[in-house]
C-alpha cells in the first residue's frame, strides 16, 4: 500500500515539477536558419530515405552556417506524425521530408502548415509541399521501355510471364513506378497478352518478393521466359533469383528502379539495368529550393509530380554502364566533398 501511495505522490511531484518550469518559455534572439530532415527510415539506404542520417544535407547546412536537425520516421505512421510535431517544436526553417507511410501525409501537412514550415518532399507528392524527386511515372516508363527493347530483341516480344513486384505500402509511388514500367513495356511490345502479367506483393524486399515469385512461377510451370518489373531493385532481384533457384531452364530478365542494386561490381546477372535516381544525393538538389527559402524568396509552390519544384533526372542505365558507377557509400563521400554538384552530373553515363 505504502509503495503505491508514495509512487502516486512521486508521479504527482514529477508533474508539478514540470508544471512549475513551464512558464519559462523560449525568448529567442535573431533566429538562425535551421534545416531539418525527417529521414524515411528505410534500412540499408543512405541519405534522407534511409536510416543512417543524411550526410549531404548535413554537409550543405554546415557549409551555409545553418543549424541542422534530423529525426527518423522509421517507416512507422505514428512516428512520422510525432516527428512533424518535433519539427514544429524545433522551430525549423524548412523541412526535408520523406515518409514511407504516405497515408498520414495530410495530417503531417496540416501540422506543418499551421507552423508555416515549408516542406520539401522526396518522391511522394503532397499538395502544399515542394516536390523534389523523380517523375515516377516517367522513370517507370523509361525502365519499362528499356526492358521492352531487350524482350523484343531476345524473345521477339513474347515472354511467357511478366512479374509485377509491387510494394503496395508505397501507395501512389508504387502505382506509378510499377504501373509505369508495365506501360513502358507495352509501348515496345504492345501485343503481350493481359494474362501474362502477374501482380503480387513484393514489399520492395528480397525476403518477400523472392518466395512470392517462386510460388507464382510454380503455378505457371510452363512459363520459362520471365520478365520482371517492380517498385525498386530489391523487389526485382528477388523474383530473378527465384527463377534461377527453380532451375536452369528458366530465362529471366529484369529491370529495376532506384538503382540501389545496380551500381558497383556486385550486380545480379539477370538484372539488365535500372533507373538510377541517386536518391542518396537528393539533398544536393534540395538546396536549390532551400537557398531560395533562406533568402526569403521562396519559389512558387510546385507540388505535383507533373509540376515538380525540382525534377531529378532519371538515369536509366544498363548493367554494363552501371559497372563504372561506384556504390552509394563511395558516391556520397565524393558528393559531400563538393556539394555544389549533383550525383547525376557526376555519375550518369552520357
Amino acid at each position: 500500500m505504502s509503495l503505491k501511495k508514495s509512487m502516486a505522490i512521486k508521479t504527482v511531484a514529477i508533474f508539478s515539477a514540470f508544471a512549475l518550469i513551464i512558464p519559462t518559455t523560449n525568448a529567442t534572439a535573431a533566429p538562425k536558419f535551421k534545416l531539418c530532415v525527417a529521414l524515411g527510415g528505410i534500412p540499408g539506404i543512405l541519405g534522407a530515405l534511409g536510416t543512417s542520417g543524411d550526410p549531404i544535407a548535413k554537409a550543405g547546412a554546415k557549409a551555409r552556417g545553418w543549424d541542422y536537425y534530423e529525426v527518423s520516421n522509421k517507416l512507422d505512421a505514428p512516428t512520422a506524425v510525432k516527428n512533424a510535431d518535433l519539427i514544429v517544436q524545433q522551430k525549423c526553417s524548412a523541412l526535408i521530408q520523406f515518409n514511407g507511410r504516405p497515408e498520414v501525409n495530410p495530417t503531417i501537412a496540416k501540422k506543418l502548415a499551421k507552423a508555416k514550415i515549408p516542406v520539401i518532399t522526396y518522391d511522394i507528392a503532397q499538395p502544399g509541399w515542394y516536390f523534389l524527386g523523380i517523375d515516377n511515372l516517367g522513370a517507370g516508363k523509361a525502365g519499362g521501355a528499356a526492358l521492352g527493347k531487350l524482350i523484343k530483341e531476345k524473345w521477339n516480344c513474347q515472354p511467357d510471364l511478366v512479374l509485377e513486384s509491387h510494394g503496395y505500402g508505397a501507395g501512389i509511388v508504387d502505382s506509378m513506378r510499377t504501373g509505369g514500367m508495365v506501360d513502358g513495356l507495352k509501348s515496345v511490345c504492345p501485343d503481350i497478352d493481359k494474362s501474362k502479367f502477374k501482380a503480387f506483393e513484393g514489399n520492395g524486399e528480397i525476403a518477400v518478393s523472392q518466395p512470392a515469385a517462386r510460388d507464382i512461377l510454380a503455378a505457371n510451370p510452363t512459363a520459362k521466359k520471365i520478365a520482371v518489373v517492380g517498385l525498386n531493385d530489391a523487389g526485382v532481384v528477388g523474383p530473378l533469383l527465384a527463377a534461377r533457384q527453380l532451375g536452369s531452364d528458366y530465362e529471366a530478365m529484369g529491370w529495376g528502379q532506384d538503382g540501389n542494386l545496380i551500381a558497383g561490381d556486385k550486380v545480379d546477372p539477370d538484372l539488365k539495368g535500372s533507373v538510377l535516381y541517386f536518391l542518396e544525393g537528393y539533398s544536393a538538389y534540395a538546396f536549390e529550393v532551400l537557398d531560395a527559402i533562406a533568402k526569403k524568396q521562396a519559389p512558387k509552390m510546385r507540388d505535383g509530380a507533373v509540376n515538380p519544384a525540382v525534377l531529378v533526372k532519371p538515369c536509366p542505365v544498363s548493367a554494363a554502364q552501371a559497372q563504372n558507377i561506384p556504390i552509394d557509400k563511395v558516391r556520397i563521400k565524393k558528393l559531400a566533398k563538393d556539394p555544389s554538384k549533383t550525383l547525376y552530373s557526376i555519375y550518369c553515363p552520357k
Partner: protein
Amino acid sequence: MATNPTQLASHDHKLSKFEMIKKSLSGPGGTIVIGLALIIGTSAIWVGKMTFTSFNLYLVLGYLAIPLIIGIFASFSLLAGVVDLSIGAMVALSAVVFAYLCTGNVNEWLAAAITILVCLGFGAINGVAIVVFGANPIAATLGMLVGLRGLARIISQMRPGTGSSQDAISLMITGLNNFTEAQISFMPVLFIIALLLVFVTQGIISFTRGGRHVRAVGGDIVAARRAGLATERIKFFSLLASAFGASIGGMLYVGKLGGAPVTLGTNMEFTIYAALMIGGYSILRGGVGNPMGGFLGLLIIAVFANLVDNKGLDTRAADIFVGFLLLIIVFLDIRRGGDAFE
C-alpha cells in the same frame, strides 16, 4: 495465550516516513523514478529549456496516451497470467475496420460500436482457445497476431475506390482528430483520460473484489480455483479487456493519424510489454505489477525517446535503451528477491 492483536498489527504501521520512502524507492517504481529524474536532469542540461515547454510535454504525453490506454487494458491479461501477443495486430485490425466502415458512409459511432464488437469477437476466440481448450497463451495469441495482420491487410485491400490495392486507408475524421489533439492547459486531453484510466485501474486492482480475483488467478490459478473463484471466466474476461483496449487504441490512432495503415502497431506487443515489464509486470507469471508502475515504465521510455528526439541523436538508440533498461530492471528485481530463472 492469545497474542495482543494490536501488537501484531503494529508491525505494519511502524514504518517511519523515511523507511517508507526508502522502501518505495527500492521497488521497480523507485528505480524508474530515479531513472526518470536522471533522464529529465540530463535533458534539462543538454537540451535546455525546451525540455519543460508545454509543447514538449504535449509531445511526450500526447503520444504516450494511446499506447498507455492499450497497455493498461492489456495489463489485465498480464495480471491474470495470460499474455496476449495479439494486441498490436488487434490495433491494426481495429483501425482498418473502423476506417473501412467510415469510408463506407457508416455513421462514426455505429462504426466504432461495430469495430469494438469485431475486436471483442476475436478476443473471445483467444479466450475460447486458451480457456476452453487450454491452449498455451503465447502460442494461441501468436496465431491470432499472424491471422489478424493478414485480415487487416485483406480488409484494407478490399476497399473499393482507388483501383489498385492499398496498404492503408486515408481518412480524416475532424472531430476525432480534434479530440486526440485537444489540450487542457498544457495537458493533452487524451493523456488526462489515460491517466484517469491508470488511477481507476489501480483502484480496481487494489480495492475491488474483481481486481483481487484477477490478481489471485494470475498469482496461482490452482489455489484460486480451490478458493472457489471462477478462474476460467476471469481469464476469459481479461482477454476481452485487452482486445477492448486494442480496439479503442486503433480507433484513436485513426483519429490522430488521419489514416489507418495496416502496419500500425507492428511490434507494439513487444514494446508495450517491455515497458510494462520495466514497470513491474511480468509476461511469465501473473499476479504481479500495478498500473502505476506500468505507467512509469511507459513514461521512462517516452521521456528517453524524447531526449533522443530533441537532441536529434540516432533514433536507434531508443531501441537499444529499451533492451538494456529491461535487462537492468529485471536483474534488479531478481536481486531484490524477485523471480530468478532457476
